[in-house]
């Protein structure tokens, strides 16, 4: 396990470069992101450990970062003052571009993985905005009317994007639909919907909606997303059956889940980071050959659990809330990085934890 200290700054997000297997970006904030400066680190994994190659200081806290898919030296930062900044690591100090349209904290930025010429941002002001780095104003604004903690482009289509927000809904937008009163919204799935009644299982009780904090598109199955949030459960949904409720429910985190990310290598594996100070690796039970939990063994199982998924490993080395986790796209499948409020970035091999 490699470690880097973001001295004086509490981590909020970590992302591996899509171009270099040894480069990481970390968005961090002083004073736990409540008040004060932000700092965007560009870290290099070297034979001597993790080295800060560059950092950029910002006026307000930083809550997320995303690498440009088009330019290997550029990356975005989502700021607490509502601005989005594009930095170039060959330059110093100042961003090459800054956009100020959001009225409140920007909590997510994500680059379009297919078209590579646009990116999006989501904010506590209840909107998602789509941007082109060449253009000084946003291209589109999609309202969610609810504090939107996480938004992402689909990795399979340049026109489809999704969000989760504090109103406990997963929204899917398709930009190809005509501009209308629905603002490209094509699906709105209540995350707290209980699973459909099954044979041989007690009818599920209704559960209260709770804030959804994070979600991610599966990298192999283009209709599958995972969501997680304050109710501590990770759920997967298949948007082909939006009314069927969750496909899998993974229970185990003891506090709210702050970030989840599907493996770029295996279609059933995902990583989560939580306020309970752990990162956990899960299978959603969809992979061939994963042994299903037998019915008679389910007595002591979490009542909410569904779909045969299970926790495969847990990384408990952080000593504060874990806020960011990401997979390395290159090399052996299993390297990942995490960051949290303990002012640390940890780089570790997930396979070492798997059981």
């Amino acid at each position, binding site marked *: 396990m490699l470690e880097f200290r973001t001295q004086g700054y509490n981590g909020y997000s970590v992302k591996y470069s899509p171009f270099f297997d040894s480069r990481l970006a970390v968005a961090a904030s002083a004073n736990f992101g409540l*008040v004060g400066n932000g700092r965007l680190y560009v870290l290099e994994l070297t034979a001597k450990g993790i080295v800060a190659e560059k950092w950029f200081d910002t006026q307000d806290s930083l809550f997320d970062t995303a690498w440009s898919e088009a330019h290997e030296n550029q990356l975005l930062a989502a700021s607490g003052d509502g601005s989005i900044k594009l930095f170039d690591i060959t330059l110093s100090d100042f961003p090459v571009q800054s956009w100020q349209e959001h009225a409140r*904290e920007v909590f997510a930025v994500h680059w379009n993985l297919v078209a590579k010429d646009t990116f999006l941002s989501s904010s506590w002001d209840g909107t998602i905005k789509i941007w082109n780095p060449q253009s000084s104003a946003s291209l589109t604004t999609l309202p969610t009317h609810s504090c939107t903690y996480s938004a992402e482009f689909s990795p399979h289509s340049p026109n489809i994007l999704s969000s989760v927000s504090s109103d406990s809904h997963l929204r899917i937008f398709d930009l190809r639909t005509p501009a209308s009163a629905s603002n490209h919204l094509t699906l709105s799935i209540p995350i707290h919907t209980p699973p459909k009644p099954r044979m041989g299982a007690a009818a599920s009780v209704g559960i209260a909606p709770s*804030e959804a904090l994070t979600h991610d598109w599966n990298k192999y199955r283009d209709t599958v997303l995972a969501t997680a949030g*304050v*109710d*501590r459960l990770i759920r997967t949904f298949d948007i082909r059956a939006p009314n069927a409720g969750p496909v899998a429910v993974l229970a185990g985190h003891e*506090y*709210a889940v*702050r970030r989840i990310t599907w493996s770029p290598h295996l279609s059933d594996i995902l990583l989560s980071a939580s306020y309970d100070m752990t990162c956990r690796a899960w299978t959603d039970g969809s992979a061939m050959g994963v042994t299903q939990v037998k019915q008679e063994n389910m007595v002591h199982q979490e009542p909410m659990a569904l779909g045969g998924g299970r926790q495969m490993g847990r990384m408990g080395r952080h000593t504060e809330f874990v806020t960011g986790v990401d997979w390395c796209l290159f090399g052996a499948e299993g390297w990942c990085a995490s960051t949290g409020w303990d002012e640390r970035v940890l780089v570790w091999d997930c396979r070492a934890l798997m059981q």
Partner: protein
Amino acid sequence: MFVAQERLSQVSNHLSAASKSGKQSILEKHPDDVVVTCALRTPITKGGKGGFKDTAAADLLLGAFKALIERSGIDTNLVEDIAVGTVLAPGGGATEFRAAALAAGFPVTAAVKSLNRQCSSGLQACVDIANQIKAGMIEIGIGAGTESMSTQYGPQAISEFSELLESHTEAANCKVSMGVLSEKMAKAQNIPRSAQDKFAAESFQKAVEAQKQGLFDEEIAPLTVKWTDPKTDEEKTITVSKDDGVRQGITAESLGKIRPAFAKDGSIHAGNASQISDGAAAVLLMKRSTAQRLNQPIIGKFVQASIVGVPPLLMGVGPAAAIPVVLQKTGLHKDDVDIWEINEAFASQCLYCINELGLDAKKINPKGGAIAFGHPLGVTGARQVSTLFTELRRRGEKIGVTSMCVGTGMGMAAVWVAE
């Protein structure tokens, strides 16, 4: 700083909603909490001799109801159900208690039931009402208990066991006298008489001290009853306002002289077991939102209860079995609890439970217990609620647990939070 405040509350929302159990979450106030807005009891008096020796159980209950209506100022038309715990009344007392409710001023629309879970009947009544409120069956209800051991205690309380019951060992054990089996348990668990006498003497001393300081005054509703003087046979009208079973000057040494009651070499005697008593208690329960709407003062809330079975011959271990269950259900640690009201059926079983659970003796029955002022069977569970809440509030503490062992081998426990 405004932004920082907002960001902080955003993050704390993520966390607060996540913790579904534990001390923090049970201290939270929610509109759908089941709260207590009034809890009181009549004095508890000595069976056969005390102030209520000639008063019927239903009359005691009537007195408690009247006091509850007066103190709480509740509109009686809003009370939908009343559960009354009682153990000895023939026919469960169902008819008299319904009549007592009507006579006390409740309209015919207020339903009444009686129930019997032996020594935990009073608690079961409160829990039943709380659960009915939680489930939405009723909005406002009363959990109560009443018992006249003076008039109804005796062998007639149990009918003969059939052959089918007698031929089953564990079933037949259900009718072994509690004194006898507590004696056996004290021996088996190695609880010496000296420890029992010390515990019992402390119960008396705590109760005497509490009486002196007037700590019971708030929970007791004095009751005026007819009383026949045993010396002159003259019928008088007296007002009872104090527990008359509490005796001054009891020490472990003075108790040491009493002859054991159940076995020659035994350790249990009248001084270290609960007294036979008369009394009644009532607890007014409703949702927090209802209490706020009606301007009822909230004195505390009901959180959770547990009921477990134990072998009939080990009836006294009930609290040791029920308390861990209720703690587990609420996510509490035993150190989170400020006061334990554990019924002192016998000093031996109460001590056993305390030792078994490793509880802090200072937190147990701070105003004394059934050894000092009596255990009117069906009342105790409801009585503990008022005793607990007044003491928690006086000390500025929050979390309390009431528990008791139950004849035929059960234990019940409940978690309450004072506000």
